């Protein structure tokens, strides 16, 4: 998704673009994601600013690709399960509001039920985030790529990053030959560290595994993206241990999606019955109506995770001509358009953007996402 957005905005800026992927479109983490476009789970800071910009850009893209990407501005509802949790959630929301997030406090079980009639009874309250939205990530990536007009080289693995005598990037090598270009954007997501290594530098991207449960097709039983307040703490945590907090949402196609687990177990693809048990239990606690519903399938993905939970975006000062666009952890789809716009700006020297370029404060953001901030050898486990 991030690569597709980079291609899209770079092409819109007048560059000629070729996209190389060892797999198919959306073959990595994009195809294993729920397509969350969230501001609700982000604390004030550079990632939230990037998410707010992305929220606006996704709205523009949704107008450009009506229905095809299944954009749903459905909003998020974060619910607290205890009074103490509600206080903490409220405090958190207040800081978000000051940073530009739109949100409303929801008081009591009745008000929650008006928003989500199937929520378990007796919950103390929550916060409603109307800016949260969803897309179907594979469709979004495919349509952005098509609209970019970029040349697609799928099923072609980059085996080397070509560099000139001065060390500057001059293209990539694949089994089908050399592709020459003065700029290479690394949007390899969870595998971004490998591309960085091919370019002679380091990016400490680690996989953080997540499972999603997919139910049988249902009518709309969950209107919004609904999750328990502990999810925010899990997202922000750097722990390697398993964390689960129910994130429940309906989809345009019918099935309800249930996340979200986080654990650092490398690229382990085996099924964890314990993860499924916890997700199922937590989802059933939030929405008792789902208990008798069948789960048709489950899938997992590997979020590309950098040690400070922020992506690496922009020109990599260590290797001229190399641009980074990876490490978005679980927010890659949501943050993709803003990332693409930033990268396009860096590629063109600041003229990119369909809406008049980057917002005020972009330089500060760029500083936070500097790819070389980890240094060489830092943080690689």
């Amino acid at each position, binding site marked *: 998704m991030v690569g597709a957005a980079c291609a899209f905005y770079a092409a819109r800026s007048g560059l000629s673009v070729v996209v190389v992927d060892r797999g198919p*479109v959306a073959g990595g983490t994009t195809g294993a994601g729920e397509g969350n476009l969230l501001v609700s789970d982000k604390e004030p800071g550079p990632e939230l600013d990037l998410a707010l910009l992305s929220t606006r850009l996704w709205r523009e893209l949704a107008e450009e690709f009506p229905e095809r990407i299944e954009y749903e501005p459905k909003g998020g509802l974060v619910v607290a399960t205890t009074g103490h949790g509600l206080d903490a959630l409220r405090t958190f929301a207040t800081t978000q509001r000051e940073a530009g997030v739109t949100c409303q406090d929801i008081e009591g079980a009745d008000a929650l039920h008006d928003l989500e009639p199937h929520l378990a009874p007796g919950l103390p309250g929550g916060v409603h985030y109307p800016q949260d939205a969803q897309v179907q990530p594979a*469709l979004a990536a*495919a349509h952005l790529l098509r609209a970019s007009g970029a040349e697609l080289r799928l099923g072609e693995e980059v085996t080397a990053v070509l560099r000139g005598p001065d060390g500057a990037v001059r293209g990539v090598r694949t089994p089908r030959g050399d592709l020459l270009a003065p700029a290479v954007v690394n949007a390899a997501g969870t595998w971004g560290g490998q591309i960085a290594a091919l370019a002679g530098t380091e990016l400490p991207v680690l996989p953080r595994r997540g499972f999603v449960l997919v139910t049988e097709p249902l009518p709309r039983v969950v209107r919004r993206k609904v999750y328990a307040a502990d999810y925010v703490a899990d997202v922000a945590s750097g722990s390697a241990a398993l964390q689960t907090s129910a994130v429940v949402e309906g989809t345009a196609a019918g099935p309800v999606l249930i996340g979200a687990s986080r654990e650092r177990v490398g690229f382990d693809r085996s*099924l964890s*019955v314990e993860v499924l048990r916890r997700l199922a239990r937590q989802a059933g606690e939030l929405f008792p109506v789902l*208990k008798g519903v*069948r789960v048709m399938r489950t899938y997992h993905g590997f979020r590309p995770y950098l040690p400070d939970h922020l992506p690496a975006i922009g020109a990599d000062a260590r290797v001229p001509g190399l641009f980074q666009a990876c490490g978005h952890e679980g927010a890659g789809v949501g943050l993709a358009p803003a990332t693409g716009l930033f990268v396009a700006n860096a590629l063109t020297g600041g003229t990119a953007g369909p809406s008049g370029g980057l917002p005020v404060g972009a330089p500060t953001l760029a500083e936070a996402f500097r790819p070389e901030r980890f240094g060489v050898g830092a943080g690689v486990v």
Partner: protein
Amino acid sequence: MPTLPSDDTVPAAPDACDDAPYDLAVVGAGPAGLAAAVAAGRLGLRVALLDSAARTGGQFYRHPAPGLGARRPEALHHAWQAYADRAARLEALVAAGRVDHLAEHHVWAVTGAAGEWSVHAALGPDGADQRRTVRAAKLLLATGAYERQLPFPGWTLPGVVGAGGAQAMLKAGLVLPGQRVVVAGSGPLLLAVAGSLAAAGAEIPAVLEASGYVGYTRRPATLAANPGKLAEGAVHAAALLRHRIPVRTRSAVTEVHGKDRVEAVTVMRLDRDWRPVPGTERRIPCNALAVGHGLVPQLEPATGIGCATRLTPDGTHALVVDDRQRTTVTGVWSAGESGGVGGAELALLEGELAALDIAGRDGRGRTSRARRRDRLRGFADAMAVAHAPRPGWTAWLDDDTDVCRCEEVTAGQVREAVAELGARDARTVKLLTRAGMGWCQGRMCGAAVACLAGGAGDTASRRPLACPVTLEQLAED
């Protein structure tokens, strides 16, 4: 040299508490799993035999429930005695406490490692009741196969049923989908189905085989080495002759007509690549169509624990097994169709071979069985090649033909994903169109989608859940 105990003595039950892991869990009580469980039980292992159905036999030896009072179930089967013998031995082993037959156990996943497998099952006829986890040191997966389907205009109309489906409903429920049934598709199963349906009273206006039978004769050595298979074929041929059923090769049903149910089919001649030959349309009135294109190995839950797969001669994926029926994962064996479609006789043999290895036995019993197995595998591969779908079949698809029955995704949508959106494989088509994302998880449309996306990939599709399971079942400890 010990082989399989040949008398009917049953070893005494060991002292075992209920929670102790089994020596062996066998998933699937069809010919392979049943033979394996019986053999392993008689070799002294404590065995759990799990199957989704209420009775053993799998699809091949599917038979009516006792309430139907069938005194001659063998009338619907070839080689019934092989089943009846093992079913009787299983009963003795169950009575002796050597084998537990865990019926109506739908296995949705396996986790663990050699020595400590956990087999997770959802209970009940439809798997919607409680949940149970069975622990075992070793694992034999004999999960069988399901029918390969290729779509055509009208194939979603009621009255169009799988050829194997018609056979299954007849064997278990003693019912027919209609009184005038066209049988079509490809593969040796069609003749057996036509014979059974006719014997049960249906009129069969035609059997349409998209390939031919000449492929067999190109391998005379394989044929000569398999007299049993020849006899089986002769039985089917004789049945068709008796019922005066015309068999047309290089022909296919290319369209089904009817408003709410089947009223007629259009049949066309095919060229060598299965492309319909214009001008050869013929309409056959009927009230049902039984259709299928061979079988697809059921790979779950094996792939979920990392068992490697191979591409078979007819374009499906099967588990990789060695000459002792070991999969590529330590402590896991496979027997029967999950390791490649080959029929019941082969499945019985493979089940016994697996049991011998699992029990640590070797010797003559193994080598002679292995020889017979290799012969039967050779025959199965020759048939698979002879009946493998040819690429021209996609010419009978309209753009508005549903390819994915569950999600109602049309051929046009799949073609658009390939031509316009960069999909090159079935998984990407699924992500972009939802073909294969529904209840059946691509089991019915998988072959067709793979073909439209450019051919079967090197790896089988992954289904971490082998079957649906309720949220409540998942949440249980």
